[in-house]
């Protein structure tokens, strides 16, 4: 009986393991192999292994530049979504008193998660373009004479759409931990004479840490890997690793694309691994 039970657990986990091996690990192995294939500049020679692609990216400044650019854009997006997500969640958890309203407003804030990100990125175009709503509004009121060019096809547009699409990835995990904070702690602190900032800094933020960690994992992974918002809203002009990978792929420089992709993957794995050492994610489920 005991052995049967053991076997059935393996049977039950096997579909998941099978799918992840074939469709997750499989492609990753292919990418790593491609990063080791010889590339003549025009054609890839599968099976002819070389470290030339790796030597190339470590010696050329472009990859380091792309990496730094990725970190910069990700850090900006993370900082904005963290502060914004924290304020929104704080409002939902502590300011809204009626449970029914709380649930309704929470749903309103997260429902777009289940709708199309592509549509929501495209939806910024009529806002930000030369003839877009914002330029028309600004010129109509007389604040500017000529359309602001930086709105569309710029880093501004890309980060705006990151904040638009990704913020709820910060709100949901934060809500999960913040809603569990015992309000008696806060009452006790208040009785001891703590002011609002002290309560925030010494109680709410430390107890929200696991939510911040999970939100951070989402935001960093989504932002660092994005090439869609970049291609829709900045015409593919961005120096991040993911965009470089995509552009090199489009230019049929597959081994270069693969090498850049592996760098991105390793950086992400190290970062998320580091966060998971700090916070036990399984305990938060």
């Amino acid at each position, binding site marked *: 009986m005991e052995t049967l039970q053991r076997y059935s*657990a393996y049977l039950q986990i096997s579909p998941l393991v099978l799918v992840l091996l074939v469709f997750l690990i*499989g492609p990753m192995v292919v990418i790593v192999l491609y990063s080791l294939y010889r590339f003549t500049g025009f054609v890839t020679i599968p099976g002819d292994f070389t470290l030339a692609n790796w030597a190339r990216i470590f010696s050329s400044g472009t990859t380091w530049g792309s990496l730094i650019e990725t970190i910069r854009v990700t850090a900006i997006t993370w900082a904005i979504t963290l502060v914004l997500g924290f*304020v929104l969640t704080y409002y939902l958890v502590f300011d809204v008193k009626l449970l029914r309203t709380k649930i309704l407003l929470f749903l309103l804030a997260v429902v777009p998660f289940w709708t199309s990100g592509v549509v929501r990125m*495209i939806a910024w175009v009529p806002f930000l373009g030369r003839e877009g709503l914002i330029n028309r509004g600004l010129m109509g009121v007389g604040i500017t004479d000529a359309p602001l060019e930086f709105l569309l096809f710029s880093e501004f547009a890309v980060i705006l759409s990151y904040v638009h699409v990704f913020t709820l990835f910060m709100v949901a995990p934060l809500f999960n931990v913040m809603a569990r904070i015992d309000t008696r702690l*806060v009452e006790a602190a208040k009785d001891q004479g703590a002011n609002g900032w002290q309560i925030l800094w010494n109680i709410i933020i430390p107890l929200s840490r696991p939510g911040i960690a999970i939100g951070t994992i989402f935001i960093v992974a989504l932002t660092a890997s994005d090439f869609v918002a970049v291609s829709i809203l900045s015409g593919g002009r961005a120096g991040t690793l993911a965009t470089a990978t995509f552009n090199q792929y489009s230019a049929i420089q597959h081994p270069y694309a693969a090498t850049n992709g592996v760098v991105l993957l390793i950086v992400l794995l190290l970062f998320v691994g580091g966060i998971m050492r700090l916070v036990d994610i399984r305990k938060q489920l």
Partner: protein
Amino acid sequence: MSGGILIIILAIVAGIVGYWIYNSVRGGGFEGGTGRGYWVRTVIFFAFLIFLYGPIVVIGVLSFQGPNGGLTFPMESMSLRWFREVFNPTYAGDFRLPFLRSIALALILLVLTTFISFTAGLAYRRGFKGASIVFYLVIVSLIAPPFLISFGLLQGFATLGWQSSWWSGALGAHLTWTLPFGVLIMFAIFSRLDMAIEEAAYDQGATNWQKLRYVIIPIVAPGLLAVALFGFTLSYDEYSRSSLVTGFTSTLPVEMVTVRGTAARPSLYAVGTMTTIFSLLIIGGTFLALYLMEMRRGLLSGGKLSDSKAAG
């Protein structure tokens, strides 16, 4: 004339909604009552909602662009021309087949994600060697750059001499996105499920199958429904993982990005509007079903409705 009436109706609706919001959110925060911080946060929250829904509303309005109108304002006039064009394409970009493929794929993903996540949840309940390795694999699946999955699958298929399409390469790529959510939700559901319930069923002489069918599945049913929603919608909307592997059989998001890059017309907005409404109907239907499940459960057990909601 009709525009004026529309504005008056909108103003009345906005007034009622505003009053209701004012009444239901009044008074909160640790400052006690309605301090300045509280009002600042209220304004930020509702400004965020406008920021969140504004663009999609604009897309909705622009879908009704006149026959000669362009991709931005002004509205040249009002027409249904672009909706008609979606159903009878006369120009580049046919969204009809991609839409059907996306729905079919999403339904397959719904079934597979629910089944695989559920069995994985059961396995973790029992415990097995290598459980933490599989857990890390799930996290890797969540954070792996989507483009790499698409790229790797495409080259893998090519190496084997296969042509990837929506039901092969794209299906696998979508699983790597829906499964982490499904599995993590099942973990959360099962970790709240008391082992004693199973033992009680076992003591009463239930077979393994009966235990599953009459005890476990009914209890975790709302969780399964949530997983099904994730499986369906995450697949239905997925672009980055599908981008290279749909081959000659593009899904709706892939077709939309292609058309956006080459031959964008207001019919693109009409599709965006329709697909968003479709998603909202699916989400609304799922939430309604979840709510009804909770209601029935609340009536049966005599427990309070709010308990489980607040915990979730």
